């Protein structure tokens, strides 16, 4: 149970960064950290004590495999996370090109 709480604390680090920081790059880093924590939570739920990786062996029959379903879900989520991070980064670069700053409060002031 303690390990779930540590995972939640990692998620809260990302949440604090998203809510409190004003630099756009810092906000993107917070989103990345929160995403890592969510992926870690899925894999933690799938773990079985003294389990083995979900790959069959030609010699022996393995009975204590870990749950392969969350692995498949997380595998797609990681690649999607990379693509959406690239989209966020390129929008941030466009904002910098237009306003000359990464600070979101200054961008609001410039708009009027």
């Amino acid at each position: 149970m303690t390990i779930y709480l540590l995972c939640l604390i990692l998620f809260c680090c990302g949440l604090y960064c998203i809510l409190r920081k004003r630099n756009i790059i810092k906000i993107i880093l917070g989103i990345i950290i929160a995403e890592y924590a969510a992926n870690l939570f899925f894999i933690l739920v799938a773990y079985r004590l003294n389990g083995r990786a979900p790959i069959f062996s030609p010699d022996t029959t393995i009975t204590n495999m870990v749950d392969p379903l969350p692995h498949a879900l997380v595998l797609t989520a990681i690649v999607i996370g990379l693509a959406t991070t690239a989209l966020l980064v390129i929008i941030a670069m466009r904002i910098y090109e237009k306003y000359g700053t990464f600070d979101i409060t200054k961008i609001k002031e410039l708009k009027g």
Partner: protein
Amino acid sequence: MTELYLLLIFMIIAAIIAIEIKDLLSSIIAVGAVGLGLSIVFLILKAPDVAITQLVVEILCLIILIRATLKKDLLFSTTGRWFLNTLIVAGFISIFLFVAGKALRELPEFGRPIMKVAATYLKEGLSKTGATNLVASVILDFRAYDTLGEATVLFTAVIGVLAVARRVGRKKQGSELEEED
């Protein structure tokens, strides 16, 4: 299981450093430390497919973020209601942790998953698909619609990046091309 706790505490410390440090490049490197630690955690939790993918994706993510922040000035504003904002965020996070801690009691204990769906995959995966890697058979046979949706999202994200990066107006592009020649 002590190595798992140690790695998680290392990841939390790296995340706090990434959040609080002033320099953006150092902050990105600290996020890289979080991701590589996460890759080792996946390896300990017996998920080798996810560990390989996390390792290579982390490297690519770092390259993209470093390209974005090179040679940019770093502006930080310290004005505003610092105390009130921090208090509100801390209150929100404490309420979130309280509710999540209550919800965690309903989860199965760590190390004993329920595996209601996965029992079928474990029993019939080899005879139905012929693939010895069960994760590959779940991704591409039992739950191939997930992969189809993932391919759609990836396609949309790439189109979005190309559209945002494209310069507005075709005429301007032609003139700049001539300048390059």
